[in-house]
């Protein structure tokens, strides 16, 4: 009887989305907008995914500016709001509505409330309490086993988060607590705490424990690379433990060392480590050891279906359209889309681990799935005189290009039929998939962290790269840029 009231009973759908975190919700919303038949199932009882529990110390790391020079809810506003899902008027830009503005970033609870509101207002349907437990390939189709029955689909999209605690092979790691088991900060009062890791979660915990712990040591093999911070997922706001250490503050240490083992000693724990940027060995006595060593995707049986992984076997290796590189038909959404690495020009990867980036990946994925299912999306015609201003506007203000630098681009095709706006496309796909004459506009960052616009022109099957100068306030719409772009496009438009 309950099944009658619940959406998406077991059965056949073109697409089945697993997960009700921001990745699943965004994918479902985009699929609905394109008219793609799909079901959404989730083992949770409510929307929100990881934001129902994390981050531990309750503060997100990506900003939302409730007031901005552009209208809230507009496409341009997305560049000021890195935490809201993409919706229609009334359903997008919801996060600032829930922020009390005590910080420039939302709290976990505010983020969760915004996701719940999005689900309600955008009408995203989810079959909650439905746990995916197994996967089977059956010809061109997939069968997903759940505790509610079997779902069959042509394409499966797993928006299951990178949520399973990951522990490196360290001897004695069972004596430590993973980040997910971190208790309220007051529990660490007057304790010696060793945190293994130097990425976001390590510094988040370190920052949270500073007022409570007696001694704090952050240790991992990799140094904090200050010069690379703009490229790094590590956020400056958490760096207070590092600042204390480099200024010689007492009781806080940030050490570059490989962990040899964790052992019991003197009624507590001891971490034995060997220097990576200095010769020698150190032993740290601790009351608590926290493994801030990150997470992996809970892939279940997907490896057995041939899903290859990357980044030390933590997440699936994905195509530019977020399909498994080794198991066609299996797609991923949400922060797992970090497995699609892009061209990594100058070593810069996409922002796919956070909502600001993967919300655009979800839209690209939905459009790709729609095409694979035979649903054509509109490709609006562009007038010749509008092309240069259009590209410069995109380069200056398109949030997709600014957030997913060197990863997503705006493509305009050129043919006898005229100019067509092909929308937002993975840059790697544009460069490698071939096709007719076209131009792709992308925003990039060089090793000196200067942000600059770039155009890639495909003419007669050959690609040429054109990097334009950077500008101190990113104003790429001036006369000189227009002249430069005209000159770059002239051969394309003549042919």
């Amino acid at each position: 009887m309950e099944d009658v009231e619940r959406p998406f009973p077991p059965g056949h759908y073109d697409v089945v989305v697993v997960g009700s975190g921001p990745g699943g919700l965004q994918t479902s919303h985009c699929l609905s907008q394109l008219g793609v038949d799909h079901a959404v199932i989730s083992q949770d009882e409510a929307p929100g995914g990881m934001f129902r529990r994390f981050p531990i110390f309750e503060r997100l790391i990506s900003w939302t500016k409730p007031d901005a020079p552009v209208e809230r809810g507009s496409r341009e506003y997305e560049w000021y709001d890195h935490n809201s899902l993409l919706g229609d008027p009334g359903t997008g830009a919801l996060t600032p509505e829930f922020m009390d503005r005590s910080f420039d970033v939302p709290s976990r609870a505010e983020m969760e409330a915004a996701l719940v509101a999005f689900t309600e207002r955008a009408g995203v349907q989810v079959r909650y309490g439905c746990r995916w437990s197994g996967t089977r390939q059956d010809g061109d189709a997939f069968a997903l086993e759940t505790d509610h029955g079997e779902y069959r689909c042509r394409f499966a999209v797993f928006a299951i988060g990178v949520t399973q605690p990951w522990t490196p092979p360290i001897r004695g790691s069972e004596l430590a607590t993973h980040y997910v088991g971190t208790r309220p900060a007051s529990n660490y009062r007057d304790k010696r705490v060793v945190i293994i890791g130097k990425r976001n979660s390590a510094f988040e915990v370190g920052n949270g424990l500073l007022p409570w712990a007696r001694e704090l040591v952050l240790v991992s093999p990799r140094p904090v690379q200050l010069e690379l911070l703009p490229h790094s997922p590590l956020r400056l706001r958490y760096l207070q433990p590092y600042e204390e250490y480099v200024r010689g503050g007492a009781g806080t240490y940030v050490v570059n060392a490989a962990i040899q083992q964790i052992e019991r000693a003197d009624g507590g724990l001891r971490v034995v480590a060997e220097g990576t940027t200095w010769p020698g060995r150190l032993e740290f006595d601790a009351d608590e050891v926290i493994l801030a060593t990150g997470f992996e995707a809970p892939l279940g049986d997907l490896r057995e279906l041939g899903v290859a992984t990357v980044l030390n076997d933590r997440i699936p290796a994905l195509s530019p359209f977020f399909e498994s590189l080794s198991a066609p038909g299996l797609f991923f959404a949400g922060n797992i889309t970090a497995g699609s690495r892009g061209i990594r020009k100058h070593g810069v990867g996409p922002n796919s681990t956070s909502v600001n980036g993967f919300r655009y990946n979800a839209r690209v994925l939905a459009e790709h799935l729609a095409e694979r299912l035979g649903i054509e999306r509109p490709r609006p015609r562009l007038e010749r005189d509008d092309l240069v201003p259009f590209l410069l506007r995109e380069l200056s203000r398109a949030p997709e290009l600014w957030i997913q630098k060197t990863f997503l681009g705006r493509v305009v095709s050129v043919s006898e039929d005229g100019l067509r706006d092909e929308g937002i496309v993975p840059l790697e796909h544009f460069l490698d998939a071939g096709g007719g004459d076209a131009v792709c506009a992308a925003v990039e960052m060089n090793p000196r962290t200067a942000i600059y616009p770039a155009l890639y022109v495909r003419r007669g099957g050959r690609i040429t790269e054109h990097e334009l100068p950077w500008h101190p306030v990113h104003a790429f719409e001036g006369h000189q840029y227009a002249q430069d772009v005209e000159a770059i496009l002239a051969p394309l438009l003549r042919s």
Partner: protein
Amino acid sequence: MEQSRPDIVESLARLTLFADLTQAQLESIAHRFDEEVFAEGQRILRTGLSGGGLYLIIDGEALIRINGQVRARFGPGEFFGEIGVLLGEPPNADVEAATFLRCLEIPGAEVEPFLVEFPRVMYRMLQSEARRLRTTTEWKT
């Protein structure tokens, strides 16, 4: 179950290029640089496109293509991308995965500090380059 899954540090330890490094140094490299995976046929470096890095092959094979012609094939322990990085020029060849390919990627801007920090790796790279040069010279004569 965890232990049967491939560990990047173990994979790096098997490469001749890193034969002189300590376990701690290998861990430092594994934490500092990312592993990248490519499907057969997927491109890694593109002719004329700047910003590439140095790639060390962990598993699989890559092929070098100039004007559509396959000119070389590299396997585990070998590397590519170094010419573009060292000369600061875009590559004059396409590099694509000949099989499913797993590499360690060192972004271009980090190659010099990396080689200076690990001179034994630089020495072994020079040996590889010398072998390649010898092969090229033999081929021409």
